[in-house]
């Protein structure tokens, strides 16, 4: 299985990533997931999330996840991009692409990687709230 993992402070360029996909003629299903920062958290207006990663360990733990995903499902490739630093509301913080020969496997693997990522990959976020106007 091909895999790539990128932690980056730059915006995630989804069209470029989409244009750059390579799918072998035997792989029928491509699932892309984009997670965006919402403008509210628990009803409170949010300007951005500040992501902090422990980079070497984050890469290592993503690698372990992708190896485990490959053991569970027949995957052709998985690509992961995760932002670090300030990510404004509406911007993408995470992007995952899974290529497999069948849709069910691609969807299941994508959901599993997202769930596990939130359990083991050392990345943290801190909310930047909208300033409250003084009366």
């Amino acid at each position, binding site marked *: 299985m091909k895999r790539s993992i990128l932690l980056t402070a730059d915006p995630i360029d989804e069209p470029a990533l989409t244009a750059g996909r390579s799918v072998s003629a035997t792989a029928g299903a491509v699932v892309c997931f984009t997670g965006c920062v919402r403008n509210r958290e628990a009803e409170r207006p949010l300007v951005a999330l500040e992501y902090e990663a422990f980079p070497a*360990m984050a890469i290592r733990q993503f690698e372990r996840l992708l190896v485990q995903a490959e053991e569970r499902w027949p995957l052709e490739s998985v690509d992961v991009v*995760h932002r670090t630093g300030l990510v404004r509301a509406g911007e993408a913080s995470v992007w995952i692409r899974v290529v497999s020969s069948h849709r069910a496997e691609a969807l299941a693997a994508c959901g599993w990687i997202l769930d596990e990522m*939130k359990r083991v990959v*050392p*990345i943290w976020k801190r909310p930047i709230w909208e300033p409250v106007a003084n009366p």
Partner: protein
Amino acid sequence: MNRESMTITVQFWSYFRELAGIHGGDFEVVPGGTVSDLLDAVSLRHPDLAPMRPCALVAVGVEYAFPEQVLQPGDEVSLFPPVQGG
């Protein structure tokens, strides 16, 4: 480092760093000491981190570690709160 102890470097991440007020530090552990022994030493020096211990995650290098894991001289240990990627 003397014969009765080994030095372990600890790094704090995310709000553990703010609670401790420092990025980390070196801690002395007896030879054959475990992650759990190290956490005792960390809690002693940083009482504001002590209440976080039940939810704290610990890594040796870039791999998760268990409390009973025996530490080796030169190990780099990371201590952090539950992760929240995505």
